[in-house]
C-alpha cells in the first residue's frame, strides 16, 4: 500500500516537472564583474508587463547596459494595470508597457514624464491547426474576429485589462461578445501563458503577442499562428520615465540613463536581432527616431 502510494506520487511528480520544463527559460549571458565605477544610486526599478518579461528580451539585452554603466536593473513584472499602479504608488523609476491609452493617462495624470514608443511587433491570432472558423485568409484581425463570432468558435480572452486584452477589445470594437451570454467566449482573467494553455486545451482561438507564443510553442502542440500582421494588430511598446516632481524617491538619473541606452543604436541592434537565434525570426521591430 505504502509502496504503491510512493510510486504513484513519484509518477505524478515526474509528470508535473515535465510540464514545467517546457516553459523554463535560460538566461543568456550572465553579467560579468563590472569594470565601471558604480553610479551613486545604482538601482533602477523597472515595472513591466508579464508579456514583456515572458518574451525573454530584457534578460537578453539588459546585462549589456548593466555592465557598461554599473547600474543594476530590477525588473518587476505584473499585469499591465498592476505594473502601472505600482509606478503610481512610487515603486518604480520607469515603466515599459504596451497599452497606449493607459500610457497616455499615466502621463496626463502627471505620473510619467513622456511616452516614448521605441519598438513594435504584431499580435497574432493563434488557433486550432484545422482553423474551424476559416480565418486564415482574412485581411485583418477585425474580419477574423467577426468570422470567429459568426462561427461560434471558442475564443480565449485574457480578460484582465492587460495591454493584450485592451488591444483585443479595440479590435472587437462595438461587437464585443458578452461572456455571460456567449459561452464560446472564454474570459480567463489570467496571464498570456495560462491563456495559451487554455486555448490549446479547449481548441480555441486566442490573440497573443508573437514572442510569448513562440517561447511556449513546445507545450502548445494543438495551436498554430493562423493570422499574423494585420494592420490592426500592431503592438507598440513604450518606455516612460516616472515623474520625480509627482513621485518621491525616483531614481531619475538611472531612469534617464536606461532610456537613453534603450534608444541608442547599440540597443536598437540588440533588439532587432533578438529572437533570430532562438526562433529563427526577429520578435520586435525598432521604431526609428
Amino acid at each position, binding site marked *: 500500500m505504502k509502496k504503491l502510494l510512493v510510486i504513484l506520487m513519484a509518477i505524478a511528480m515526474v509528470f508535473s516537472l515535465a*510540464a514545467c520544463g517546457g516553459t523554463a527559460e535560460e538566461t543568456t549571458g550572465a553579467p560579468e564583474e563590472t569594470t565601471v565605477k558604480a553610479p551613486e544610486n545604482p538601482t533602477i526599478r523597472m515595472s513591466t508587463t508579464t508579456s514583456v518579461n515572458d518574451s525573454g528580451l530584457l534578460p537578453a539585452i539588459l546585462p549589456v547596459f548593466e555592465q557598461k554603466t554599473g547600474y543594476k536593473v530590477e525588473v518587476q513584472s505584473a499585469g499591465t494595470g498592476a505594473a502601472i*499602479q505600482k509606478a503610481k504608488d512610487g515603486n518604480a523609476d520607469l515603466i515599459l508597457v504596451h497599452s497606449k491609452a493607459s500610457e497616455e493617462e499615466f502621463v496626463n495624470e502627471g505620473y510619467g514624464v513622456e511616452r516614448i514608443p521605441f519598438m513594435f511587433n504584431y499580435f497574432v491570432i493563434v488557433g486550432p491547426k484545422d482553423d474551424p472558423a476559416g480565418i486564415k485568409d482574412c485581411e485583418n484581425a477585425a474580419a477574423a474576429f467577426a468570422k470567429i463570432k459568426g462561427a461560434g468558435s471558442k475564443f480565449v480572452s485574457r480578460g484582465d485589462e492587460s495591454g493584450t486584452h485592451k488591444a483585443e477589445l479595440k479590435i472587437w470594437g462595438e461587437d464585443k461578445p458578452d461572456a455571460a451570454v456567449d459561452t464560446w467566449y472564454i474570459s480567463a482573467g489570467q496571464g498570456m501563458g495560462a491563456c495559451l494553455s487554455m486555448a490549446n486545451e479547449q481548441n480555441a482561438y486566442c490573440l497573443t503577442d508573437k514572442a510569448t507564443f513562440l517561447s511556449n510553442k513546445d507545450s502548445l502542440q494543438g495551436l498554430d499562428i493562423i493570422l499574423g500582421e494585420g494592420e490592426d494588430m500592431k503592438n507598440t511598446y513604450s518606455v516612460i520615465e516616472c515623474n520625480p516632481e509627482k513621485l518621491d524617491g525616483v531614481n531619475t538619473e538611472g531612469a534617464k540613463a536606461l532610456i537613453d541606452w534603450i534608444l541608442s543604436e547599440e540597443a536598437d541592434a540588440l533588439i532587432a536581432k533578438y529572437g533570430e537565434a532562438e526562433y529563427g525570426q526577429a520578435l520586435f521591430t525598432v521604431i526609428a527616431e
Partner: protein
Amino acid sequence: MDKELFHIIGVTLRMSFFSTLISCIIGLPLGVIIETGRFRGRRIMKKTAGTLMGLPPVVAGLIVYMLFTKYGIFGSLGLLFTVEAMVIAQVMLITPVVICLTASVVSVSGKNLSETAKGLCLSKSRSLLLFIITNRKALLGTVLTAFGRSIAEVGAVSLVGGNIQWKTRVMTTAILLETNKGKFSFALALGMVLLLISLVVNVLASLLVKGEKTDD
C-alpha cells in the same frame, strides 16, 4: 459587476461546499478508523495523511491538471476548467486535513468510547457514526477548517479552473485578477467580502450545533 459578483460568490460557495462535503464523507470515517481501529498499516496511513497535509496547493492543481489535460488519462471527460475539476483538486488538498484533525479529536475520548460501543455490540458503521455524533462539536471545527482552506485557496483552483468569467471564477481568483489589473483597493474590498462569507458560514454552523441541545 453586482450580478457578476453574485455569480462569483455562488461559484465560490458551490465549490467550497462540495469539496468540504466530499472531503468530510471520506475524511471523517477514515480519521475515526485510523485513530480507533486495530489493523496493520494504520500508523503508515496516519503518517501519510500527515505528510499530505503539507501538499502545496499548486502541486495538487498540477496533478489534477495532468490527469485531465486533453492528452491526459481522463482527458476525454472534458473536466478541465470546470468547477468539478476544482472540487477534485480541493478534495485532494483538504481530505488529509480532515483525516488528521478528526483523528486528533477522536483520540481524546477514543478508548473508552470504543469499549463502550463494542460492549453494546454496535456494528462497525454504527460505532463509526457514534464517534462522529458524540464528537460533533469538536468536529465542527474540523469541518470549518476544511471549508476555510477550500474557500481561501487560489493556486490550485486558478490552475485547474482557469479563472473563467461566468464559469469558474471564484473569490480568490477574482481578487488575484483585480490585483493584476492594479485595482488594489477593489481587490481588498473583495477580500473583505470573502471574510464576510466566511463569518456567515461560521456563525450558521455554530448555530446549527447549538440549536439541538435537548432534541437530538
